[in-house]
């Protein structure tokens, strides 16, 4: 069936309304793929290929199937051959690079394209993403502010600013912006809406608001059934409620939907908490094999691998080796936290505290960060910060506990 589309090839497919009754139950990415393929059939060319690549990248986010990124990259290479230097091709390539966690390359490409097209909001948004991931927060704040200023209320700007607010220690303010983004997202954008609700659930949980976190996770799953991010978030809510068994069961579904290495780690954790020791061991073994296999690349599960070696496998030296490799690449809060933890497990408490102080200086009040920071402070003999940080973590997320014993 020939597909009617109001999409301009110059626009991201996801911004276009696609009245496709035949695909009534198709996801936004599937609709975009169908539209891009139909458009390519009518008019082959670089821009059609770029639109199809973007649709694949969206599908990768919807399904957690990273093969879509490989397909997208191949399409973009084809497009680049047809139209060297095409801005749309360059823009969509940055999207895919971000999806593949090639943050340094994404930042470089986004900076170059931003200089050529300073008014392109998506390029600015992706530049912000790359800077956040690399821990270049001042630059990220600057580009996010430009985003907000250029089109007050634009959704890419709101979500980036929300994420930065969270990192800067203002989850309440982040929630405000995510809610604003949700109000502005059309109903048909089911995956976008589910993603936003998942983020709001996560923020609510970090504020200790369990009922709101549970409701939002359920709403996300209702908006986009089986959504892998929402499954994982709901599992975290269940775990926070003390339903370790329920959390583990849900994460089994999650890992089947999104079989990435790090997801096996979280499954192993949940199974261990649920007392399903044999299953936990199996999940951890699967995790280690998969995570080690991709540890040298950018798209890796190295932070989880650090925690696994440090806390589960009893291999602190390996944990530190992985952490040092990762911190050489990026100095974001999560990587600093993992590095500090590896140092801590290796008995290098002063260095661990220094790394943790660098992470805390960014401002985040994420309970798990505070908990680990408190434990490191205690080990380093920093009595006052230890008490304060552990107290705050306990207040926000009493379900985390403050044990510091490695091993399952």
């Amino acid at each position: 069936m020939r597909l009617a589309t109001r999409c301009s090839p110059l626009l991201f497919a996801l911004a276009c309304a696609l009245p496709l009754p035949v695909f009534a139950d198709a996801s936004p990415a599937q609709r975009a793929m169908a539209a891009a393929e139909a458009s390519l059939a009518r008019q082959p060319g670089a821009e059609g290929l770029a639109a199809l690549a973007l649709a694949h990248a969206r599908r990768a986010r919807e399904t957690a199937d990273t093969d879509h990124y490989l397909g997208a990259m191949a399409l973009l290479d084809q497009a680049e051959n047809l139209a060297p230097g095409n801005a749309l091709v360059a823009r969509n390539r940055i999207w895919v690079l971000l999806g593949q966690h090639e943050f340094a390359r994404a930042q470089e490409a986004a900076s170059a394209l931003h200089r050529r097209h300073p008014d392109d909001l998506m390029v600015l948004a992706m530049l912000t993403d790359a800077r956040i991931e690399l821990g270049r927060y001042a630059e990220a704040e600057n580009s996010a502010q430009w985003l907000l200023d250029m089109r007050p209320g634009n959704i890419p700007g709101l979500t980036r600013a929300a994420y930065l607010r969270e990192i800067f220690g203002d989850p309440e303010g982040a929630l405000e912006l995510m809610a604003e983004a949700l109000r502005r997202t059309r109903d048909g954008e089911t995956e976008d809406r589910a993603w936003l609700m998942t983020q709001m659930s996560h923020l609510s949980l970090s504020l200790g608001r369990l009922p709101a976190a549970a409701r939002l996770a359920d709403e996300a799953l209702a908006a986009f059934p089986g959504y892998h991010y929402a499954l994982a978030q709901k599992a975290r809510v269940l775990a926070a409620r003390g339903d370790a068994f329920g959390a583990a069961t849900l994460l089994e579904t999650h890992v089947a939907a999104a079989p990435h290495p790090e997801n096996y780690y979280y499954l192993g954790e949940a199974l261990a908490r649920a007392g399903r020791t044999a299953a936990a061991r199996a999940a951890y073994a699967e995790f280690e094999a998969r995570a080690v296999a991709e540890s040298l690349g950018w798209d890796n599960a190295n932070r989880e691998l650090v925690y696994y070696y440090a806390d589960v496998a009893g291999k602190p030296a390996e944990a530190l080796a992985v952490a040092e490799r990762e911190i050489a690449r990026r100095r974001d809060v999560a990587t600093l936290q993992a590095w500090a933890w590896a140092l801590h497990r290796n008995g290098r408490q002063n260095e661990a505290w220094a790394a943790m102080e660098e992470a805390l200086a960014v401002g985040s009040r994420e309970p798990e960060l505070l908990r680990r920071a408190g434990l490191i402070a205690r080990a380093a003999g920093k009595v006052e910060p230890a008490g304060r940080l552990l107290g705050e973590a306990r207040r926000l997320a009493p379900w985390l506990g403050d044990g510091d014993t490695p091993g399952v």
Partner: protein
Amino acid sequence: MQRNLLSLALALAFAAPAHAANHREAPITALDHKADITDVYAFRSYDGDPTPRVTLILGVDPLLEPANGPNWFPFDPDILYELKVDNNHDAKPDLAFQFRFSTEQRLAGLFQVFAGVEGGASAPANAPPLADGTPTAGSPIVPDRIVGFDSPGLGQLQHYTVTLVRYNADGSVKSRQLLGTDLPAVPANVGPRTMDYGSLFNAGIQSLNGGVKAFAGTTDDAFWIDLGGAFDTFNTHVFPVLSAEQDAAAANIAPDTVAGYAVNSIAIEVPVAWLTETGKVEGADSPAATIGVWGATSRPRTTVRRSPEPATSTGPWRQVQRMGNPLINELIIGTGSKDRFSMDLPSNDAQFTGFFLDPALPRVINALTGGAVAIPAPPRLDLLPLVTYAAPIAAAGTPAGPVADLLRLNTGVAPTDPAQASRLGLLGGDPAGFPNGRRVFDDVTDIALRVAVGGVLAAPFEGYNPDINGRLGDGVNVNDQPYRLGFPYLADAPSGRDRRHLDPGEPGCTAGGGNDCPK
């Protein structure tokens, strides 16, 4: 924490940018009419008073249809309107005149914000009573004709403050001086029955301490152009090369698309000595004589970090638009950079050097005329006087400063008597006209076209033809309405009842004369 969790890419909830209207030069301003700057003027006051003064005018809110009641065109209290001045050639503001507005609604019971009739109108004998039986005969229904700011029919009254801010070299505020407060803004010209607009206009000219005058209100749009022709891919209604006779005429041979429309204007006149770095009136040959002027509009912003005092009303601000020279963003800056240009600071304009020194406009003219209009090769160093401090505007020895879109004014050049002035400004041998500052009657369209195709600000180049390059024009040579010859130098807003716009083929009104003038 999770793979791809941070691939934040979400739907772009806005439509494709459009770039097709004068005064809406960037997508951001096309979406924010109230903050859209139409024109910036800066000139030595030419009212005949020998005290050297400079008048600065900021036009906002373009193409206002004068009949468009019942609310007409209030200034936006949410916008910070600014006229900024650089006097030490670094393209950063050394002083700024800031304008903020407030709105008072006084006719809550009536359906339009301005109403009046000579003598007022009361309920006649046969007027029905109120629902509760109260008789109404003889009670006032329509207020008296509006003749001043105290008239009760002026149901929507705006007041404004003017603040002079001076800055230190590092950009921090050195001083804030309130020049005027509670100054009334002149409303739209609703029509002759409702109001004596002329009286309101005159009452709106405010004399402040220190020889300063201020004005804010709805006025005639002082700009004139064959706008529709220009933006139909330069399909002007007359061939863009004027004959010598057409070029010399103080009359229009093509329709002024802006005729019959109003605009909101903010004007201030200050002694020259307030503006120069030395605090003195400098001679035209002094490097300290030349200043750079630009206008800006800003709105409160949502910040990435929440303010600890979210209720404060003094910022932070996000700039929506700025303008120095006319037509730069409209005709020079590429479509992928127009928002950035609007929102960035002039001191960061080096990023746009490519557009300034190899603009697309002359290439378009060159192509559309099949090469009849020859143009020089880039880099277009002849355009530098528009974007740096350079001759023939600035005196020898003036630091060029960074590339920046500022309207440069040599305050040492005496004003030209309007009777002797040329609409072509510097190009017409009139040293007090654009691009040395800009007066309301400078024909910036024709000047900009001729400057753009080269050979007029610098020595002619190979292929330059004074009868072609030197005579480009849109055939609209004068404003439809006569300008005032004193502050604020602007013409009356057209009357909502009797305004007249022009269709193709109508040369229209010439400075208030001719067959097509509104009553």
